[in-house]
Structure formats: structure tokens, C-alpha cells
């Protein structure tokens, strides 16, 4: 019996190390829970809506959460100044913002992902964004949306449930207008 304690102990330690590695690898993968819920016909609650993030502006210090815009349609767009495809869709997002603002239906909210404040502000100036932008400094906010590549866009209805997801560049304005219309209806 005593002789078995050594091998069993080694096996247990080995299993623990392997479990730790598996957990670490699983944690790095992107979650697709929102996509699966949408595909199943459900409208999943948007994650982290009450978590505050720093507001991207020249005056530092203020913070805001997505729940601030509850009651209206919110188009959450993850972007970064170093992302070329984000720049390609920037015009469409600003167009959507003007549509939403004109009808007082909601807003686009940009969330910068692992980006420098100065570079992000320069991009806002270059594209003339009129929508608010927040900073996800370490990417942990985006992680809850399963976002690890840019750009990605989530359209939320008035109850802040996800009605549409674009993982990748939005190439057609109709995708945005259709998703916004669906968000208004639900």
C-alpha cells in the first residue's frame, strides 16, 4: 500500500498540471456563446452592460457603461486605430450614427480594443466620428463578447439584448440598417 503512494502522487500531480494547461488554453479561446444563442433563435443579454469603461476623450477621468444608453438601440463596435478593416467600415458606422441620432432611436458606441489613446483620438478626428467611444484597455470587456479579432459589431435592442452580430468588417450599410430595424422591433 505504502509503495503505491509514490506513483499515485506523481500521477495526481501530472493530472493537475495537465488540467491547468487545458484550463489556460480554454481560457484563451474566444467564446461563441452569443452567436450560438442567436443561431438558436434566442436574443442573449449583452454582457458587461453595467461595467464602466474609461470614456475616450481628451479630458481623462470620466467613465461610462453601456447601460447609460439603455432604452435605445445601441450599435456596439469594437475597433482600433491600427486595424485597417476598421478604417474601411468607419464611414458606414458614422452613417448609422447619423440615422439613429436623427430619429432619436439610439446610438453607435465605439469601444477601442488594445489601442493607444492618442492614436484612437487621431482616428476619431480623421473620420469625424460623432458617436461616443469608450476604451477597453486590456481587452477583457471585449473578451465577454468573444471578441479577439477586429472589427466586430453587436447590435443591441432597447432591453440591451443582442439581435445581430458581425464578426469582421461590415461591407454593406444594409446589414446595419436591417439589424437596427430588427432591434427596434424586438
Amino acid at each position, binding site marked *: 500500500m505504502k509503495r503505491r503512494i*509514490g506513483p499515485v502522487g506523481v500521477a495526481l*500531480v501530472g493530472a493537475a498540471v495537465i488540467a491547468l494547461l487545458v484550463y489556460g488554453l480554454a481560457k484563451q479561446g474566444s467564446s461563441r456563446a452569443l452567436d450560438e444563442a442567436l443561431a438558436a433563435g434566442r436574443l442573449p443579454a449583452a454582457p458587461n452592460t453595467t461595467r464602466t469603461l474609461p470614456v475616450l476623450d481628451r479630458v481623462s477621468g470620466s467613465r461610462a457603461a453601456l447601460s447609460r444608453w439603455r432604452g435605445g438601440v445601441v450599435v456596439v463596435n469594437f475597433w482600433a486605430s*491600427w486595424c485597417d478593416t476598421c478604417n474601411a467600415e468607419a464611414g458606414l458606422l458614422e452613417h448609422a450614427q447619423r440615422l439613429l441620432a436623427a430619429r432619436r432611436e439610439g446610438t453607435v458606441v465605439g469601444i477601442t480594443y*488594445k489601442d493607444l489613446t492618442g492614436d484612437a483620438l487621431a482616428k476619431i478626428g480623421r473620420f469625424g466620428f460623432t458617436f461616443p467611444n469608450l476604451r477597453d484597455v*486590456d*481587452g477583457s470587456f471585449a473578451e465577454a463578447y468573444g471578441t479577439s479579432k477586429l472589427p466586430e459589431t453587436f447590435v443591441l435592442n432597447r432591453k440591451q439584448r443582442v439581435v445581430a452580430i458581425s464578426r469582421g468588417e461590415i461591407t454593406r450599410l444594409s446589414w446595419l440598417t436591417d439589424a437596427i430595424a430588427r432591434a427596434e422591433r424586438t
Partner: protein
Amino acid sequence: MRRAALYALTVLALSPAFATAGAKQRTSMQAVLPYVMCVTCGIPLTDAQSPQADQERAYIQQLIYRGDTLAQVKGALVAEYGTQVLALPPASGFDVTVYVVPAAVVAALFGGLLVLLPRWRRNRNRDPGSGAGAATGPLSAPDAARLDADLARYD
């Protein structure tokens, strides 16, 4: 005497240690890179090739030009990208395993040796007939008879 004191003061003032004692030490790209990760690729910034890595390197260069120390550069990077920008993560949350697991493995190996080595040594002393010494001991009568029989088959 006064001239000697003046000479000593001049030498002291010109020595690098004295000159940098109060002033901050500006860092270099070579000094910073080993401590920094590419936050989107998850590999050391030295090896990373991506638009985000280029942005990080350009920012570090700006900080160096500004005259920042290594600690200031690291602090500025953490403020922009979070702690994941550092090659060595903070000892909190799941990241604490980076420090705990290797230490635990080394401790377990050391502990195992402490327990097993005396046991092996004890077993060896208790059983002199085992191992390499077996061939040198006297044979029992049945073993000797069997050996003789085996050898007889080769005659």
C-alpha cells in the same frame, strides 16, 4: 591643499556615478523589449510582426525620445494596454500559476528526493545480496548444483 580638494571635487563631479545619481536614467529600446509583449499576438514584442506591434514599438520609441526611464516606459505601457503588455504577468488571478506552478514542481521534486534517497540507501544496506554485489556472494547448495548442471551441458 586647496588645489587637491578642488581636483578631487572635479573628478567626483565628472564621474558617471555622481552625474547620474540624482538624474533619471533614460532607457533604450534594447533594454525595454525583453519586458514587453505584443498584446494582440501574445508573443514577445521582439518577435512580433503586426500593425499593433508596430504601434507599440513606435510608442516605446516616443517614450524613449522623451527621456523616460525603464520603469516609466513600463508604467506608460500598462496605462495604455493593461498589465498583459508586460512579459511577466502580475501575481494575481490565474496568472499567479506562472509563479506558483514552477516553484511547486521544484519543491515536489526536492521533497521526493528527500524522502526517496534515504529509503533507497536503507534498502541497499539492508539487502546486500541484491544488485551488483549478487555475483560475488557464495552460492547456496541447490544453486551450485543447478550451475554445475548448466555448465555440464556445454562440455
